[in-house]
């Protein structure tokens, strides 16, 4: 079937799926939880740990409550899509593969200026960091490119390469559109605004004005407690989900403006403890199996 990634948002996504599928990636579906970035998907965090090869690509909807603008800002959204590719171990031709994927969706590097500009990545919440770049296309950041060095406080052995494409930005660029809501979603005139404008309006209002803060505080505490409960039962994946939940509730509380500067650090610390605790438990649980299968590997 012919794709038309230059005219259709969904075709652009499908073209990326085709490309990465052809290059050996599992095409996964989004994680069914609210999260701030594709990196939170277990296919990234948990799979970045341990020695087993892992190649996957997926779209992940991201929630950034404080970025909501009631649908009035042409490029800021409280809900948007990231396209994540995770390749472990990072292949020697990973940059070439990435550039090839840009050609597939219609970006010709002899017409557009593509640059790899230093941008290291760090997530204190996940106890993770990596080195890499933000990839510029004519001065616009279109992808975050990272070699994970640590996750959950553990060295990544081997290192995974992570590519995170900002899908809306990329599509706006390719389609030559200045307002995200004017993006052609299907190449047949249905716009991004048709699909999401009302969501942005309502969700911005809810995030900033409506969400019941007492209930949110309560949810945060419950997620924290449940994470610990799951950890004590040695089901780290379940514990990790609760850490992701707590992280999002914290973001909502931030949007409601009810967390003071002083409290902020303490909440972030609590989320970090949950996320790291889950990663550690996952590592502990899997390490014996990994070590047996990969004798050259050690925790």
């Amino acid at each position, binding site marked *: 079937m012919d794709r038309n990634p230059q005219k259709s948002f969904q075709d652009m996504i499908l073209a990326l799926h085709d490309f990465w599928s052809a290059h050996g990636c599992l095409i996964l579906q989004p994680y069914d939880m609210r999260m701030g970035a594709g990196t939170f998907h277990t296919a990234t965090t948990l799979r970045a740990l341990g*020695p087993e090869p892992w190649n996957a690509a997926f779209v992940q909807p991201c929630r950034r409550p404080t970025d909501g603008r009631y649908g009035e800002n*042409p*490029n800021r959204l409280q809900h948007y899509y990231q396209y994540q590719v995770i390749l472990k*171990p*990072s*292949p*020697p031709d990973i*940059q070439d593969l990435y*550039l090839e994927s840009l050609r597939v969706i219609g970006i010709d*590097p*002899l*017409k*557009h*200026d*593509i*640059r*790899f*500009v*230093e941008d*290291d990545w760090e997530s204190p919440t996940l106890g993770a960091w*990596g*080195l890499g*770049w933000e990839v510029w*296309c*004519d*001065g*616009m950041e279109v992808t975050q490119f990272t*070699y994970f*060095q640590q996750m959950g406080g553990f*060295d*990544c*052995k*081997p*290192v995974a*390469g992570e590519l995170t494409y900002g899908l809306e930005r990329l599509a706006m*660029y390719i389609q030559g559109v*200045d307002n995200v809501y004017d993006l052609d979603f299907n190449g047949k005139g249905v716009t991004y605004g048709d699909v999401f404008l009302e969501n942005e309006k309502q969700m911005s209002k809810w995030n900033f004005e409506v969400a019941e803060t007492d209930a949110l505080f309560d949810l945060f505490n419950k997620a924290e407690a449940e994470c610990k409960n799951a950890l004590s039962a040695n089901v780290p994946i379940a514990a990790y989900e609760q850490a992701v939940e707590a992280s999002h509730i914290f973001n909502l509380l931030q949007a409601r403006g009810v967390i*003071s*500067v*002083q409290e902020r650090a303490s909440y972030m610390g609590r989320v970090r403890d949950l996320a790291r605790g889950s990663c550690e438990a996952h590592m502990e649980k899997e390490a014996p199996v990994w070590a047996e299968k*990969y004798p*050259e*590997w050690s925790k």
Partner: protein
Amino acid sequence: MSDFLLELRSEEIPARMQAGARAELEKLFRREMDAAGVECGEITVWSTPRRLALIARGLPVATEAVSEELKGPPVGAPYQALDGFCRKAGVEKGDLETRDVKGRATYFAVKNIPGRATKDLLAEAIPAIIRDFSWPKSMRWGAASISTESLRWVRPLSGIVALLGDDVVECEVHGVTSGSVTLGHRFHHSGDITIGNADDYAMKLRAGHVIVDHEERQDLIRGGAAKVASEAGLKLVEDEGLVIENAGLTEWPVPLLGRFEEDFLEVPPETIQLTARVNQKYFVCEDEAGELANAFICTANIEAEDGGARVVDGNRKVLAARLSDARFFWDVDRKKTLAEHAKGLERITFHEKLGTVADKVNRVVKLARWLVEEGVIKGADPDMAEQAARLAKADLVTEMVGEFPELQGLMGGYYARAEGLPDAVADAIRDHYKPVGQGDEVPTAPVTVAVSLADKLDTLTSFFGIDERPTGSKDPFALRRAAIGIIQLALENLLPLDILLSATKSHMDRDFAVKELRASQDNKGRLIEQVIDELGHEAAMGLLKGWAPSLRNANPKKEIADAVFRDLERALLVAAPVRDFVLERFEVLQRGEGIPVDLVRASKSIGEHGIEANVVRLRARVKALQSFMDTEDGANLLAGYKRAANILKKEDWHGAEGEIARTGEEDPLALVDDPDMKAVIDAKMNERHAKELSYEPEPAEKALMDALAKSEPAAARALEAEDFSGAMAALASLRAPIDRFFDEVTVNADEENKRAHRLDLLAAFRAAVHKVADFSRIEG
């Protein structure tokens, strides 16, 4: 002789690290060659985002053979000795040679170390260079990274070209093998490029659309940007940092000019320039009138097929989005006055132990006003100083400064003017962070000086108050910079600023100005200042302890006096180290100007305990002392002083004052003030006076006494008038008499009364010198 080429290819190296990497590559290469005994001449190092290259010219083909002879034991020595020698020399017994040494047959080990081919040495050096290479941040990658022992590099290392002459230097580092093949430009060239030797390297890369010489790329950007600007009738705003950064981001730089909407020019030009520079690495331009123009210059890494039209258009859109944000911030911020913004400072923690920024502002407000009212800063309106201090930090909570922290102060100045505040206030808000480090402009507008000085004094005393002092290379709160700022402000504006006094004031909770205290008390109140000025901190503490009770008794509002003293005592404990810290920085600054540290230290100490805490005065003292020490009088007086001091030290002579000091009280003034001690002091003084007249002094002795009697008051008058050259001249008049005294008079006379008097005379001489400068600290 052959030329050597090394190219280390990798994924994109951060622009900011390339200069350091070039230096590191050269350093490690020289280290390896030194160790191998290879002479290297001229070395060229280049970098692009994707490669580091080194060319070493004229390397020898091989190192020379070296023959080494080791002398062993004589023939017939015990066999253990011979064995030991062979082991040490690493030779077989049978290979030893016998030679005659002064008539004795002696064993010799002769070792011939053969020369080695440079190519072999290089093959060992390259892996060592790569393994030892130090990057600010490095990483692991790929399948090998299953072990943390795998190679670390700034980004994945992908290729090595190593050629000596026309030959490949074969080596392998963690799976990367050397060869003669490299890659050209990422997009303009496909396929391999085979390098023949060091001479065709740059040329072949150029054919592959890579300019490997970073300086050439910098020139291209500098010249190209200026050219596209002038073609558009504009003038490039030069920015060397951007030139270097863009050269570090491109292998084939192409500067392109684009335009943004003219409407954006309503926002302050600095915000546009900063947005363009920091976020997008663009240059900006000025029109003929020197005003910022609606143009930007980006540096593409390709020669685009359409001449760059699409590239420029894409960049224009990105910049427009950024400028829309800036304009939005500018509009939103101006909807509130700075006073309204300032309320938000209550929510920002300055430091967990020091409260909020609003708390800091309150302290700075009081101090700025005090500095003006106390006369430290002349020509400022105290109300304006207070207003400027109150609003100086308000821009920290504006949207614009939230986005661009570099614009702090500057935006406050814009917002102040926009709401119609006086220029003096707006300027003070804008410039109060200055000077930030040496070389920065030092404010001279009085209101600005008041706010800037108060801000820095408060920062210093606040952090010293919670024991956060710089240690070694750690100075997280930039206290050294604050201290240097204080010194620069004082020197530039000739401020009569006493660091100890103002730091004390700065750290006092209560609103009592020292001046008020002085006015409200009897003349004892005035002593606070005197003590602080003349005796230093320790003496001041002693005084306060002895003095507080009597003051309490004299004062009807004793609880107030009591509280003031407690507060003052606490503040002094912090202020004294602050003064010492600032004076240390002063020493460093003076050393930077080529002034010997011992002269600064000598000028810093005055009298027995005093420390000069006024840097303007201190600088004048140092200058006067330096000129004096350059004269013959100065050098000779120093010699005389050292001799006198040595004798006094050897005799352990303390004189009348010394006896008092031995009572255990540190502070003479406390004793003077103490009625119980009066009798003791009087008795000592009488004793001393009685001694003086008990014999006929020798002429040289009399001459020194007379000279001292004249010189002391002359020096004192000169010091009072802050005429430090005059004080030195008064000291100079002592040089001939002291020289003569030592020539003609026996200090250790048999008669005790003569000896005592002469030692006292030397002590008086030493004390007279000390009032001008502490000569014991001068070297030489």
